[in-house]
């Protein structure tokens, strides 16, 4: 495949564009040269014949184009042809300079990398607890957070329905610097199965029991019934004492933090909904977008919110 010719357009449409573009340039040149001089010359008295058009009694001379204007126009024609030779514009022709948007972006990314990578490299060498104390680093990290994370987790990092609150001590996958870094870099995928097969009555019992674990409002009778069911069904992921399992991302059910509770909703209703529907939490991996260096900084920021 000839390196100068791409294949984004079919041959027909490529030819269509080339013909129309070059044809228009040729047409402009023809109009320019065709109108350059004039047939009308001054007669013996120095009068010049007009074009014949008369607008409200004002007649029009047929003066030739000024030379400087004419030369400038030629300049634009040369520029047009030169541009179309060097850059893509004629259909599938790639242009002699081989310019593409991607290459320009690549060049800018490399310039940015060369300029900023040393800064992030320096921070990468510092441990997360130390970074959390560094004001300047945290300001950079806050900007990174606001640009990349705030859309889901909120600009104040308090999260929302389905988005964890990072200003509290409840961690689904662990709150150590390594755990936070891994959550951000590789992402997380938490799955809570739906338990509809147990039947609505059983689910209500379970929900009331779970609510009782954290001291939220519950029906004691139902909670007692739910306890046995909990031991049979739920401790596998949530732990014998229901304090959760960071390896699986199974939450601690004895604390006040509820990921899937609407503002003001009673806990048992929220738990009931979760039991009915199941949940599939998804934290996208940020390492491909940010790179490990920036992930390190953002992890330090998240760490700093609770230390």
């Amino acid at each position: 495949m000839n390196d100068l010719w791409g294949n984004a357009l079919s041959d027909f449409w490529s030819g269509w564009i080339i013909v129309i573009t070059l044809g228009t340039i040729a047409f402009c040149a023809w109009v320019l040269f065709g109108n350059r001089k004039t047939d009308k010359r001054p007669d013996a008295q120095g009068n010049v014949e007009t074009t014949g058009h008369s607008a409200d009694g004002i007649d029009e001379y047929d003066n030739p184009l000024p030379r400087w204007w004419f030369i400038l126009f030629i300049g634009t024609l040369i520029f047009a042809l030169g541009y179309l030779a060097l850059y893509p514009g004629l259909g599938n022709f790639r242009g002699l300079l081989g310019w593409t948007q991607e290459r320009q972006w690549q060049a800018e990314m490399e310039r940015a990398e060369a300029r900023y990578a040393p800064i992030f490299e320096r921070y990468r060498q510092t441990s997360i607890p130390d970074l959390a104390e560094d004001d300047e680093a945290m300001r950079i990290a806050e900007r990174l957070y606001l640009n990349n994370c705030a859309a889901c987790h909120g600009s104040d990092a308090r999260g929302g329905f389905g988005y964890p609150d990072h200003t509290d001590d409840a961690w689904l996958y662990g709150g150590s610097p390594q755990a936070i870094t891994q959550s951000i870099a590789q992402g997380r995928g938490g799955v809570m199965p739906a338990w509809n097969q147990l039947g609505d009555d059983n689910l209500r019992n379970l929900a009331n029991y779970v609510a009782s674990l954290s001291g939220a409002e519950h029906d004691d009778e139902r909670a007692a019934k739910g306890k046995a069911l909990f031991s049979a069904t739920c401790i596998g992921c949530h732990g014998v004492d229901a304090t959760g399992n960071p390896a699986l991302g199974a939450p601690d059910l004895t604390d006040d933090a509820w990921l899937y509770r609407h503002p003001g909703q009673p806990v048992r209703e929220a738990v009931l909904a979760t039991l009915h529907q199941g949940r599939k939490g998804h934290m996208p991996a940020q390492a491909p977008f940010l790179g490990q260096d920036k992930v390190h900084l953002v992890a330090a920021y998240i760490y700093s919110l609770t230390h």
Partner: protein
Amino acid sequence: MTDRIPLHDATTRVSLYAKREPIHVRAVKGRFQRLRRGLDWLLLALYAGLPWLTWDGRQAVWFDIPARQFHVFSTTFYPQDATLLAWLLILGAFGLFLVTVVAGRVWCGYACPQSVWTWLFIWVEQRLEGSRHRRIRQDAGPLDAAARGRKLAKHAVWLLIALATGVSFVGYFTPIRTLLADLTTLSAGGWALFWTGFFTLFTYLNAGWLREQVCLYMCPYARFQSVMFDKDTLIVSYDAARGEPRTAGRRRAVAADATPGDCIDCQRCVQVCPTGIDIRDGLQYACLGCAACIDACDDVMDQLGRPRGLVRYTTEHALEGRPTRWLRPRLIGYLAALLAMAALLAWQLAERVPLDADLERDRHQLYDVTAEGGIRNAYTLRVRNMDARAHRYRLALRGIDGLHLNAPVRLTLAPGASRSLALSIVAPAGSLDAPSQAFSLAITAIDTPHIRLTKEARFLGPARR
């Protein structure tokens, strides 16, 4: 003999394009030229001198485009102040229109940079190549070695002036001391070098080569300035009633049929004109109102013992013998517009607070409920300190009872610095009257309370049941 039949060459086509005739401007002295020269030297001194002034350790007048900071003595303007620039430009435009209504094209003749530099270049030409008749004789035939030397010297001086102009111009955007140091040590690069070269070249071309062609063909103001004229506008005019019939030389003494007019057809007014017109033909588009012809004619009249003013600043009404009306609707209109813009600019400058802020709600959820039952909204606050010194700022919330920030915020900003802050704003349980309520956030500099900005926003909560 019969008259010869005039011949028309039918084979060639004629180009009606008129080649430019070089204008050899004659030197002239007089009161208007003194006024113009004084004004021009003052403007040139301002232009060249301003970049050299310093203020508080930095250049006093410095338009720092990469940093987006525009320093004018004690104040630094930011892109957020662009409306001030708009008012300033509108003010300039209306000022120009007002001057045109009153006195015609005098901006062109006295103050326009094109004119100022062209007059300067003409003055250099006169000094180096000699007076008008010498230059005409020199340019008429082939140049000898001496003439070539003079021309070379002239172009060299022109280029030097152009270089000084270019360096001064770029000196408004890059600190001029570093710029000069870099240029002289040949270590200047990139855009600074390009723009210095660009302005040097174009000053040289505009003032040395194009000269009046700019005023006649290129300038847009030249094209529309006459639309602001009326019969009460001061124009440079030849008093035909007094000057006609013009008679020169011996014909004056023997003229019997009519009393000769004051004009002796010495052609002085034509020779001194920088655009090459004859003002005796009447008001013309090309007349810059520079009054060179006035000074020339006054000088001749003085020598003849006649009163001055054969060519003078006057109005068409005055020439017709009618009174000139100064306060007319057109002038009052422009004056009113000018005063209004000046007032607007002055007011906005006075009211300007060197602080900029943006308050944006988070969009991922309408609101959240705190453990105590309060309602919380999350905001991002962007603050920029536009003052010349650092400040500590305090945030205060107003509009809803008990509205408070989740954590106290103390903000310190260096001059020109900006910060993005995440704010959690909490309304206590039961304090909200509506699902959407207005409130305001006031940012105040602790040490300078008059630096204060209030941002209005809305607080969202649960719908009433």
